[in-house]
């Protein structure tokens, strides 16, 4: 083949590559992008607070049922200025993080076993799915009778909330791996463990992250339920106990402040930890449609 023709082939190919490469549209300026993301939720909160303020001003319900937004803010501000908020957050968040970490250690091997071993899938799989729909608060009485009013009882409840979610997320992530990928892996020389380490686990990552996110939500929820029910001086004061104290004192603004703080922590961890993690994983794989 003459050299000229070979050169031409290369040029044709380079041209095709240039034409066929997917075009990535650029999304406006950085400021506008951030504003577009931040403004809608902020607007929604403003509207919500305005309605709340209006209802309170109209004295629709009695003051001890619906507090003024300013009174709730006052409660929170007092916690901030006195520094008590640090203690509340610390007690609850460190419990949630430790509970979540232990759940992870249990759920990952469990999920791997369910996904890969047929007997385990048939035997344990439905149990784990069933546990996911059982509210973990239901375990509080048993946990208190078994362990007494202490941290172990609380961790037990958190584990039963988070482990099924994380394990199920891993299983569904593994189940959704396109079958061509392990086949390709085998053709490229992957052994049993190489196939799991280099092909299956990375391929299952998006589903697994979804499970982690849900697992966090469940462990936070379970923790709050456990703290709310299992109150004792020994346990220290977390957000759940703060809420409980508000109820005992018939202080509705304190109760609302407790709810707001629990909400802020739950959403905050999701936004600061899980959302960026998920977005970067999805973006790297070109799955940006869901990464808005």
């Amino acid at each position, binding site marked *: 083949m003459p050299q000229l023709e070979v050169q031409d082939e290369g040029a044709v190919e380079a041209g095709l590559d240039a034409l066929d490469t997917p075009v990535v549209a650029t999304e406006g300026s950085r400021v506008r992008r951030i504003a577009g993301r931040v403004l809608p939720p902020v607007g929604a909160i403003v509207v919500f607070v305005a309605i709340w303020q209006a209802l309170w001003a109209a004295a629709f319900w009695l003051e001890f049922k619906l507090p003024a937004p300013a009174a709730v803010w006052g409660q929170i501000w007092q916690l901030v200025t006195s520094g008590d908020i640090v203690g509340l957050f610390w007690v609850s968040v460190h419990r949630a993080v430790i509970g979540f970490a232990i759940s992870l250690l249990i759920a990952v091997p469990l999920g791997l076993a369910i996904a890969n071993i047929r007997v385990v899938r048939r035997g344990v799989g439905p149990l784990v799915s069933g546990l996911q729909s059982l509210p973990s608060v239901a375990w509080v009485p048993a946990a208190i009778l078994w362990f007494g009013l202490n941290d172990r009882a609380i961790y037990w409840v958190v584990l039963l909330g988070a482990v099924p979610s994380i394990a199920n997320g891993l299983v569904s992530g593994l189940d959704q791996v396109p079958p061509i990928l392990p086949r*390709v892996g085998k053709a490229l020389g992957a052994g049993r463990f190489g196939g799991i380490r280099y092909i299956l686990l990375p391929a299952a990552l998006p589903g697994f992250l979804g499970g982690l996110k849900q697992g966090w939500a469940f462990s936070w929820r379970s923790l709050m339920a456990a703290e709310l029910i299992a109150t004792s001086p020994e346990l220290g004061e977390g957000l759940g106990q703060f809420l409980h104290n508000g109820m005992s004192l018939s202080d509705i603004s304190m109760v609302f402040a407790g709810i707001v703080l629990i909400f802020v922590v739950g959403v905050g961890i999701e936004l600061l930890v899980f959302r960026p993690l998920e977005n970067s994983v999805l973006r790297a794989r070109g799955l940006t449609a869901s990464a808005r």
Partner: protein
Amino acid sequence: MTATVDAPPSQLSPVRFHQVGKAFGSGRKAVVALDGVDLEVGAGEFVCLLGASGCGKTTLLNLVAGLDRPTSGRIELNSSRPAVVFQEAALMPWLTAAGNVELPLRMAGVPKAQRRAKAAELLELVRLAGLGDKRPHELSGGMRQRVALARALASTTDSADAGKPSLLLMDEPFSALDAITRDVLQGELLRIWRATGTAILFVTHDVREAVRLGQRVVLLSSRPGRVVRQWDVEDTPDAVDEINIALRKVISSHAAA
């Protein structure tokens, strides 16, 4: 251009089939995919397997690739690990183009610097030098298939098999691409074949493609797959027409059944 898969001086056939049969299922419900297939691919030879649907072309490649086992007969493999290119590029979406090419080397425990160099060399071979950092979704279909080819070539080059002839298996690799891209990639494949001297077993259902690429075209019958006829493309003046007629005959024989 540097040759990356060296053609050995020995004339050992990379792969030889001895009366190979493959059935799926057992008893009366068994489906016979391949029956008594005798086939040989010479070192550095380009062989196209041609057949209609259900001729067991893909089964045959899977047997050579070690993804499946024959139920009867045996396959004599004298090559290094066969490189496989599938119909879909099936790149790992979490890895870059270079990362995909490096994957088989990583699984074989090749040190990092060596992996890098090898991947860069193979990407240059498929004319994707400088695009190693791209993710699969940032590449066109044709580019993805070339990355898959580079990755497959990387999987054959483990040092343990040095000196053995190399073998590239391709399962309708261009059938999902548009006509222009297919045409260009066929030219590319011929260039890479000449540059590397690897033997190629190429499955297709397109007679023109088979005649353009292959030195030898092997026609398989359908259900069960048997070797019907073979042509040396060089010695057959009207290869496309002749093979087309034979293929139609094979297909129409199924209408009566």
